[in-house]
């Protein structure tokens, strides 16, 4: 038996050439699996329960994939809907999908799987930290604006067995969406999970990651991976190297049900564009665990940005920035009566050392510098008041040896941009569960549902 998993792109909404999906169907795809989220773009999306992707971009991809699923009569599985996999993210993608089904006259049954958790519903005694975090304080759990549990394949399998054609999952491991159907069909977990990891970023495991996604053909002994674009290639090097991507450990990866171990895997070129992988193992865990993600508001931010082109100031940019930092503290204390604990700020010199800061290896004199001031306070009004008080300094601050006031180059008016709430990820923990589906709620959407 073989199961063929088609992954058109690493992220729903990132786009892909339509003909690559057609090609995947011609090759006999049994399921389409695509990731819809990631924590990679920061805590804002989970904290606010909003998506990083544009609705039109998600709709453009979904339209092609729903048509493909309907034509080939194969399931479509989307994981981590709406970037963070909150209930609002699942509902957002489901709304887009339903509009497309109605507009295209497609008759597909949608199941949604919610993964959002309430702090009060989680047993803190069963929550354990993952490195490098420490034990969880109940107050931290309660401070989160959103908490999601990361599902494995089991809730997705349950939705498929319930008759769903389209599964729109909340937060799921990147691999679970591709692993679900092959595991449901009874293929062994070693090849299935390794294949699922290799396909999770679409074309990332090929020689041309921009040429669309991949197809994995999984069997009892291993799997074969090939790009959907006939002009693109997988090589033993590109496939093996993909285990490195965004992983802490390249040899093993934890899933809710156990650990993928690829240290003994072999990668063999079948021809110049297909690779055969064998020898991957899956070690079941004694205790099933669900990883939790949570984000909370730390305060509010206001940003101001100015820029310097004058070589005189740039020649002593460190001195200028140190003076600015000192004067920000003095002016804010004098005008607003605020001390160090009442607000915080980060001053960044783009074009000089903003990105690497303390570890910048090269501090050559810059040609121009963008000066970003990011102010953080308990409320938006305070953050903006600080930025406004500092504004004359960002416009006119000279170096100590100048006997006149320069005017620096603000790129926008107004100078200040209110960034709204600032979030941080606070959960890096896993909860022991008795059932792999217990934390997840599966709903089949009926045509009459609003």
């Amino acid at each position: 038996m073989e199961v063929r998993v088609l992954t058109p792109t690493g992220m729903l909404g990132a786009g892909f050439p339509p003909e690559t999906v057609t090609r995947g169907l011609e090759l006999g795809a049994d399921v389409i699996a695509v990731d819809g989220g990631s924590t990679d773009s920061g805590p804002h999306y989970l904290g606010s329960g909003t998506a990083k992707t544009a609705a039109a971009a998600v709709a453009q991809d979904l339209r092609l994939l729903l048509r493909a699923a309907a034509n080939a009569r194969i399931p479509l599985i989307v994981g981590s809907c709406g970037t963070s996999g909150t209930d609002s993210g699942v509902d957002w993608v489901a709304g887009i999908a339903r509009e497309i089904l109605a507009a295209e006259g497609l008759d597909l049954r949608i199941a949604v799987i919610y993964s959002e958790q309430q702090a009060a519903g989680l047993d803190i005694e069963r929550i354990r930290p993952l490195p490098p975090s420490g034990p969880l304080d109940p107050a931290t759990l309660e401070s989160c604006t959103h908490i999601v549990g990361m599902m494995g394949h089991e809730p997705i399998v349950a939705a498929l067995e319930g008759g769903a054609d389209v599964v729109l999952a909340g937060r799921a491991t990147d691999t679970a969406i591709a692993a679900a159907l092959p595991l449901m069909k009874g293929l062994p977990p070693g090849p299935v999970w390794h294949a699922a990891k290799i396909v999770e970023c679409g074309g990332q495991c090929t020689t041309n990651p921009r040429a669309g996604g991949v197809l994995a053909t999984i069997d009892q002994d291993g799997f074969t991976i090939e790009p959907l674009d006939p002009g693109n290639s997988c090589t033993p090097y590109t496939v093996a190297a993909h285990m490195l991507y965004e992983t802490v450990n390249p040899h093993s990866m934890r899933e809710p049900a156990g650990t993928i171990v690829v240290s003994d895997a072999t990668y063999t070129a079948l021809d110049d564009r297909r690779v055969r992988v064998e020898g991957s193992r899956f070690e079941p865990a004694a205790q099933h665990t669900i990883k939790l993600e949570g984000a909370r508001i730390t305060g509010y931010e206001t940003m101001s940005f100015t820029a310097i082109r004058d070589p005189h100031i740039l020649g002593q940019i460190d001195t200028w920035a140190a003076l600015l930092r000192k004067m920000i503290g003095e002016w804010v204390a004098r005008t607003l009566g605020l001390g160090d604990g009442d607000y915080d700020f980060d001053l960044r010199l783009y074009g000089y050392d903003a990105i690497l800061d303390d570890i910048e290896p090269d501090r050559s004199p810059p040609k121009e510098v963008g000066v970003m001031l990011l102010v953080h306070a308990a409320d938006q009004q305070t953050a903006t008041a600080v930025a406004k008080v500092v504004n004359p300094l960002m416009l006119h601050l000279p170096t100590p040896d100048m006997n006149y006031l320069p005017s620096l180059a603000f790129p926008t008016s107004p100078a200040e941009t209110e960034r709204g709430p600032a979030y941080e990820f606070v959960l890096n923990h896993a909860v022991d569960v008795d059932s792999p589906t217990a934390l997840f709620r599966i709903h089949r959407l009926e045509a009459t549902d609003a």
Partner: protein
Amino acid sequence: MPETRTIADLALEVRSKNAGPFWVTMEVFLRDRAGYDRIAFLDAPVVARLYGVDPATIQIFRIPALNVVKISFPRPVSQGSLRDRDIHAGQHHVPLAQLPVSA
């Protein structure tokens, strides 16, 4: 053949990225076994000095089959916090890439 001065000169690619919100991971893809052997000096104390992190938290994986050295350590700055200047940690490979190698 240009003079080899840094790790970047020996590599096809040096890259960095988040591995989840709490870790950063970097890979050096060396051009060949000779290059792989030349950066054998890259150990936890060297990386700790380069990135200002605790050497005890650094994990280094050497993969001779790919001529790759992979380095992972906890993110020194919380992702998306006030002092995070690289949300994806995608530009933090540069100190590693520019590290001098002895002739």
